[in-house]
């Protein structure tokens, strides 16, 4: 049953090809069916492969399908080969499953867009690249997928490129990612120089066989992680993700919440032996994750754009996943990735539904009281918010709790404390969203109110499906307090991620930790309720009382401004100087000099051309005489 797993990425690839070549001539309806069907087939194959994988013995993991030898240059050997093991099976399921739901949603959301076919071409291409990323059996092919999703992200952020801000946001995302990718590429080169192969199995056996030193492992792991901070929007390269919200909302849901931005977490989990072996690198991952988790959460507190709040929330949640990976609980990190994919894409799709109802309005100041107009979106959003806030028995609770418990168990109390603080903020800003959008007084623009309506079925059914999974997805990874063998997710990942990394604490401590994280979640919700329902003047008063903090948060710590001043402007200034001094003078001088030298010599030589046929004949004759004379003499 696993024979055909390598087809998973290629079905969307074929669909992309058809749409890209014939897309203009195909009717809209056909485009929708083909794009959705392609991803659905991938999903179906993923399910079949997963079942097949469960029936295969663990000794034969990972199953590798070598399609052909791609680069064969001396000792530099790269195969185009895909692999299937528990980690890539889970990722393939999430990507194709959530991807399919979002494709269906897009059919409704993008229905009136002029670039409908282009949109689905990009979306299929993205699915292909993402599946290559998660199924590649060597790091070079993974990098191909890594760059492919970056390209699709760029294309889709700038989808409405006639809008200046969207085009700029696309460029920003692409350029910021380049910074990370340069480091990632360096990491790959180090792997090839010192290990000699990019295959994950070879890297793992080199690490566990002691073929590389700990310092080298740290260097490689950190370089790869810098790449991950770019793609997964962590400090210091997170700045592109909030701006990426210029893209269509389903894109934000699929690429900038559920799948692409979690690629860094997948990569770190894939390389878990390397990170564990290095130790230092794992600690850096955990610290960056924890700081990002709380830092991004504070920025989400004051934003008024519904999608921007969700974007900061995504950054923060990915920070949690990195905490999990950093403290050695890779399975918990992956588990949070998996549950996050459902509830965050649900939240984004709900946000899209709200914006759809209000004719594209994303400013929360112009919402309020939408509960009665959107009878389906409201409960769906509520479920998503509860799940992300960490209320018990919803999926986010299990995964976030698994991460924080492990952080505590590893003795990283500082990181655990940051995570707990982040959890309060998470619950607060999510319920701030709920109260500002769906409760309270109506602040809707009269123009938008005329067209207010619940979204069509093609959009609400995906919401229902995702809401269902946001509730139940967590039950495959129950914490240890409910029973030893209930964490099916954890034991499924066992062949890839050895359980030995994780520490165990007594059940009593674990119960206390769970109670604390539940307590802080409720605390956040209550604060939000007080601030925005009970006494709506408090936020205003706080803002005037602490204007500095409010301004700092509202302006996102001025990081964009600092980056602009330090990196962007200095680059522009430097480029201008180089353009002025080097380009114009040296390069243009050389080029123009060559041209004028050729022109000048041509002018001199052209005096030989009298245009008179007799002159030519005479020269011809002279040449002949000289030639014959030469032959006679020598």
């Amino acid at each position: 049953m696993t024979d055909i797993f390598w087809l998973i990425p290629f079905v969307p690839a074929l669909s992309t090809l058809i749409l890209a070549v014939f897309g203009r001539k195909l009717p809209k309806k056909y485009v929708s069916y083909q794009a959705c069907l392609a991803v659905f087939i991938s999903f179906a194959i993923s399910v079949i492969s997963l079942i097949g994988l469960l029936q295969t013995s663990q000794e034969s993991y990972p199953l590798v399908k070598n399609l052909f030898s791609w680069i064969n240059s001396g000792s530099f050997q790269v195969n185009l080969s895909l692999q299937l093991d528990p980690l890539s099976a889970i990722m393939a399921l999430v990507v194709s499953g959530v991807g399919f739901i979002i494709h269906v949603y897009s059919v409704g959301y993008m229905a009136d867009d002029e670039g409908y076919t282009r949109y689905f071409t990009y979306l299929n291409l993205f699915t292909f690249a993402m599946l290559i990323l998660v199924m590649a059996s060597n790091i070079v092919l993974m990098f191909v997928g890594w760059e492919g999703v970056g390209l699709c992200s760029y294309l889709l952020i700038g989808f409405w490129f006639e809008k200046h801000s969207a085009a700029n946001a696309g460029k920003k995302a692409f350029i910021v990612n380049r910074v990370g990718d340069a480091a990632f590429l360096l990491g790959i080169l180090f792997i090839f120089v010192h290990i000699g192969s990019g295959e994950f199995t070879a890297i793992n056996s080199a690490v566990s066989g002691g073929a590389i030193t700990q310092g080298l492992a740290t260097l490689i792991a950190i370089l790869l992680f810098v790449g991950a901070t770019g793609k997964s929007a962590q400090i210091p390269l997170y700045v592109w993700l909030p701006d990426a919200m210029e893209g269509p909302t389903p894109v934000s849901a699929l690429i900038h919440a559920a799948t692409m931005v979690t690629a860094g977490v997948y990569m770190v989990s894939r390389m878990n032996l390397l990170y564990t072996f290095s130790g230092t690198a794992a600690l850096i991952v955990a610290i960056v994750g924890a700081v990002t988790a709380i830092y991004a959460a504070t920025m989400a507190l004051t934003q008024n754009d519904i999608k921007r709040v969700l974007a900061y929330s995504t950054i923060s949640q990915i920070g949690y996943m990195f905490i999990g990976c950093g403290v050695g609980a890779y399975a918990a990190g992956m588990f949070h990735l998996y549950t996050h994919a459902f509830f965050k894409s649900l939240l984004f799709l709900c946000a899209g539904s709200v914006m759809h109802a209000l004719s594209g309005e994303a400013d929360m100041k112009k919402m309020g009281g939408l509960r009665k107009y959107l009878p389906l979106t409201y409960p769906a959003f509520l479920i998503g918010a509860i799940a992300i806030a960490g209320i018990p028995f919803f999926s986010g609770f299990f995964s976030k709790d698994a991460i924080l418990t492990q952080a505590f168990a590893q003795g990283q109390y500082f990181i655990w404390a940051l995570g707990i603080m982040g959890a309060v903020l998470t619950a607060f800003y999510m319920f701030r969203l709920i109260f500002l959008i769906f409760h309270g007084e109506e602040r809707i623009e009269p123009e938008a109110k005329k067209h207010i309506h619940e979204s069509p079925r093609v959009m609400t059914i995906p919401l229902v499906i995702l809401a269902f999974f946001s509730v139940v997805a967590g039950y495959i990874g129950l914490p240890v307090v409910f029973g030893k063998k209930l964490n099916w997710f954890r034991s499924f990942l066992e062949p890839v991620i050895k359980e030995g990394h994780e520490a165990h604490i007594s059940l009593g401590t674990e119960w206390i930790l769970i109670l604390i994280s539940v307590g802080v979640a409720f605390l956040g919700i209550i604060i939000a309720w007080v601030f925005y329902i009970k006494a709506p003047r408090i936020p205003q008063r706080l803002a005037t009382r602490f204007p500095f903090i409010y301004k700092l948060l509202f302006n996102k710590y001025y990081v964009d401004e600092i980056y602009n001043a330090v990196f962007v402007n200095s680059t522009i200034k430097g480029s201008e100087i180089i353009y002025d001094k080097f380009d114009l003078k040296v390069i243009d001088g050389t080029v123009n000099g060559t041209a004028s030298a050729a022109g000048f010599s041509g002018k001199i030589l052209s005096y030989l051309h009298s245009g008179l046929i007799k002159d030519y004949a005479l020269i011809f004759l002279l040449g002949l005489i000289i030639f014959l004379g030469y032959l006679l003499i020598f």
Partner: protein
Amino acid sequence: MIPVSYFLVLSILLFVMGTIAFLIKRDLITMFMAVEVMLNAANLAFIALAKSANSIDGQIIVFFIITVAAAEATVGLAIILLIFRQKKTIKSEDIKLMKG
């Protein structure tokens, strides 16, 4: 039997006459005729040498040259005719389109 050198001397004389005529005449038609004389001087040398060497190859080449010369003559005359139509002259020094 006339020695082959006689033919060759005649051929050289014809060739030199053609060359000089080509260089000193101004009329395109005359220059063209001079070229034909040079061509036939070469033909003569071919025939003479072919006869003396008892080989048929030289004679065959001469046939080819004559055929090509016929074609060349028509093309050359056509060009001269068209130049005359355009410029109303066939004086070689008046035609210097290629002057640098």
